[in-house]
């Protein structure tokens, strides 16, 4: 009897796992793709050579000439206003400069040297280790958002990665078999989920872009991030600096690319930060709606769902 039960349970696990991971859309898409590939070349060959030589030149000229109603308000991608009050701009610009110099004069050279000495897998291990220690803050955030499945995932990840991942150096739980992904959340997002806005833009020295709302992350980390409990204080500071150097070594070049592409780097980083945080909060809200018990997802709500997901 027991034997049959385990067999059935074993059978259920893989089927459930597959249903979640592969999803239905990818199958539909791949079918659609294979069929369109055959259709496409034919239509291209027929239309484009005939049309383009005389028509496309005109079309481009017209596009430059027209005055248009370029509001994009009715656009399918509702391009929300992602602006933020910036009354502290002079202070913020000064801090932006300070952080910029800190990066180019201190952090980057150190990280580059460190990168030469320590191979990448080791650095990724260190990153995983510190990320694993961020568990209390993420766990609490999930609980505060009433996201029980997220909290359970985090708890599972912490246990598995600490025990089987050699104290968090490896990340076995995000592998394909277990598929427990890190919950990308923090206390600032938690406030955001409950409708708290940014207020205004602040650039902190060292910590970078933030707002009064998101500064709760810094406060929260002071209590919830284990490295801050190390005594004496300079040892704890040393560990934090090491973490910063290690993480920087894994993404040297990103900051430079962003900065070089910007016309006004200060405004570009402000906008990127606000966009990034807004979408994170939105993603959390979507997750909370979709992970709510099925009884709540009665038909009247459903038509609204696809829009929100997109």
């Amino acid at each position, binding site marked *: 009897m027991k034997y049959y039960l385990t067999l059935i349970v074993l059978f259920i696990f893989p089927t459930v796992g597959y249903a979640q991971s592969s999803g239905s*859309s990818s199958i539909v898409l791949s079918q659609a*793709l294979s069929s369109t590939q055959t259709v496409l070349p034919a239509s291209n060959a027929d239309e484009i050579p005939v049309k383009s030589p005389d028509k496309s030149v005109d079309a481009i000229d017209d596009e*430059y000439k027209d005055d248009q109603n370029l509001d994009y308000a009715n656009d*399918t991608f509702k391009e929300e206003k992602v602006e933020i009050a910036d009354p502290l701009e002079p202070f913020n610009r000064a801090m932006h400069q300070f952080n910029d110099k800190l990066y180019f004069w201190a952090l980057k050279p150190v990280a580059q040297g460190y990168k030469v000495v320590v191979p990448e897998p080791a650095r990724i291990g260190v990153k995983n280790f510190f990320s694993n220690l961020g568990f209390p803050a993420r766990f609490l955030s999930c609980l505060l958002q009433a996201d029980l499945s997220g909290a359970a995932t985090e708890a599972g990840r912490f246990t598995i990665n600490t025990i089987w991942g050699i104290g968090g150096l490896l990340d076995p739980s995000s592998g394909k078999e277990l598929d427990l992904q890190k919950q990308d959340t923090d206390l600032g997002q938690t406030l955001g989920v409950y409708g708290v806005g940014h207020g205004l833009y602040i650039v902190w020295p060292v910590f970078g872009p933030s707002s009064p709302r998101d500064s709760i992350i810094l406060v929260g980390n002071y209590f919830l991030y284990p490295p801050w409990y190390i005594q004496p204080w300079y040892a704890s500071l040393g560990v934090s600096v090491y973490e910063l150097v290690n993480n920087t070594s894994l993404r040297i070049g990103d900051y430079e690319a962003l900065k070089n592409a910007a016309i006004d780097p200060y405004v570009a980083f402000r906008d990127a930060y606000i966009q990034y945080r807004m979408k994170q909060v939105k993603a959390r809200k979507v997750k909370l709606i979709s992970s709510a018990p099925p009884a709540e997802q009665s038909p009247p709500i459903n038509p609204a769902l696809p829009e929100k997901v997109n």
Partner: protein
Amino acid sequence: MKKRIVVFCILIIFVLSIPVYAGVPMTMAEASVNRVLDVLRDSKLKSPAAKEAKKEKLRVIYKDMFDEIEFSKRTLTRNWNKFSPAERVEFVKLFEQVLEKSYIDKILDYSNEKVNFYKESMLSDNQAEIQTKIVTASKEIPIYYRMILKDGKWKVYDVVVENVSLVQNYRTQFNDILAKDTPTQLLEILRKKVKAQ
């Protein structure tokens, strides 16, 4: 007899229309990205001397893949109307150069990361979002392409990297500049930027 012809016609319409509707933007984006990857992986172009040839090849693909006018219009929004046609032409050209010069090194740095195309969402008849992921050893970078259908061709008009839309990012910057400066001054800033790079 008539009924049969009608049914037959409807069937033909279905057969022809469904596949074209479902996957074209995704195929277009994937094909373009694969062409880029082919150039980057090309062993003949590995030497540092071939960098220019590589850039030239990438430029051709870029022209085919992006709708730079749509891109410029969307970043300027209503300010587009403040530019004279000649200024618009120059703006589009300068903006393209700024983008090329800032991102080309990042692209040439490519070292066999995987690019996964995993989702297409049609947002209207002529707009679609293609979701992709670049998978590296230490992280996954989500990159979304927003495409628009113009003259029978799907072209990219916005790229969203890690949830940050390029169009929106530049729009904020240009709005900020044009709130106090004229279009001529903005063009001057862009010219300086291109020279400095």
